């Protein structure tokens, strides 16, 4: 990959759901190889829509979108790029549809044209890297919430994408799983965009945080998250500080 290559280039992009108010309004955004950015914003501010637009699950109505330097217009244009971008969905049950974990993780590589043996080996390597190799033969719907999230991450990483899009990866997870995810993310040599309401987590895994407001990133974008006093949720019981 070329150093500093632009992965995403969005210029004056607009999007509205049919009959709805404009959700994305002249939005500008750039992401370069290796950049790790966070996105915060209130509920319904268009954060998830923004990720789905980058993935071509929704089509932008105005403006210009470039992926890896190529201009894309219709959703069809995205098909060739989708396997280079990994999207982690908010709800793991949407992501895991195969009966067993190993089949789900191998699904992406198989679609990329790998043989069954290659895909299986790759899937096992990724599971081992995330310390969840013991889940391989488990049935997906019987996993706990944290396990489901880790397996979802494995399904995305198994495709060896060049950039990750993560939609609220820590929502509803316990401290241990959250710490594990942030450890995994920090160890990756990939660019990623993380949507989250979890400021501590964002401060830990991203360098820069954008604030989404009224359908675009606020003008003074690139806020640096700062230290603050906070409540200890378990009283005197210690918890890990990520900053």
């Amino acid at each position: 990959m070329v150093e500093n290559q632009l992965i995403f280039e969005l210029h004056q992009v607009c999007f509205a759901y049919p009959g709805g108010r404009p959700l994305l309004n002249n939005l500008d955004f750039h992401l370069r190889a290796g950049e790790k950015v966070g996105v915060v914003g209130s509920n319904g501010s268009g954060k998830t829509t923004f990720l789905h637009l980058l993935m071509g699950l929704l089509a932008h109505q105005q403006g210009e979108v470039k992926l890896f330097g190529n201009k894309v217009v219709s959703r069809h244009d995205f098909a060739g790029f989708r396997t280079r971008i990994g999207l982690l969905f908010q709800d793991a049950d949407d992501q895991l549809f195969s009966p067993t974990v190993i089949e789900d993780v191998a699904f992406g590589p198989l679609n990329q044209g790998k043989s069954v043996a290659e895909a299986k080996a790759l899937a096992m390597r990724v599971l081992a890297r995330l310390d969840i190799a013991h889940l391989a033969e488990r049935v997906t719907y019987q996993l706990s919430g944290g396990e489901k999230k880790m397996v979802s991450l494995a399904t995305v990483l198994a495709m060896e994408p060049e950039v990750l899009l993560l939609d609220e990866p820590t929502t509803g997870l316990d401290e241990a799983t959250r710490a594990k995810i942030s450890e995994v993310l920090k160890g990756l040599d990939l660019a990623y965009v993380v949507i989250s309401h979890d400021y501590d987590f964002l401060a830990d895994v991203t360098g820069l945080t954008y604030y989404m407001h009224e359908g675009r990133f606020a003008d003074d974008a690139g806020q640096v998250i700062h230290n603050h006093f906070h409540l200890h949720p378990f009283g005197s019981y210690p918890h890990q500080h990520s900053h």
Partner: protein
Amino acid sequence: MLKEHFIQGKSLLHRLDPRGKVLVACFFSLVVALTHSPVVAGGGVVFGLLLVLIARLPWRPVGRRLALVNIFNLFLWLILPLTYAGSHHWQWGALVFSYEGAALAALITLKANGIFFCFLALVATSPVVTMAYALQRLGVPAKLVHLLLFTFRYIHVIEQERQRLVSAAVVRGFKPRVDLHTYRTYAYLVGMLLVKSFARSQRVYEAMLCRGFHGRLYCMSEFSLTREDVVAVAIMLLSVIFLGGYEWLKIS
């Protein structure tokens, strides 16, 4: 929920190649479902029971399912003898019982139980997922196989969603009664479940697109026919041919 009660086991029928099992089960159902002869239907029950014995299935869950199947047959026994026109009958007041109706109810009961035993021993002894891939290998259209696999995967999620909706109603004091409020609430519940399932199916499809799905699911388990498979499947197929042949010989 969909617990696969019968897939645990080390019997011959658990070991057999699922393709052979599904083939025998379908052929058997065809012969038994189409027969007019009580002897063939009775033979089907014996064949099915033998398979259940060979599979060494736990008797309690088998019994529960057997009762469920025969509740439907009970309705036939209540209705058919009273409504079927026939030459032989006996009368009790205004009620006319026909022997032909009873014979028909008996024939249907035999058929239903025979097919039930056979599917229990041959199909329910493999995991649904394995069965689905076996069907794919046998040339069943991919769309139907996907339908089966996704139904199996998401029926649990939909059931959890239903339970969440029911709890949401119950914690706000909902008690089912015979009134419009109750019916409306149930209608909302079913409607909400449909809408949610539809929305989820779209999200799942999007998730699949994101991982490069282009209309094909790949099967990761390999099937291989052993000598044991060939012999067992051949014996079962011959028995079914014998059953079918018996009726054919009697007609001609």
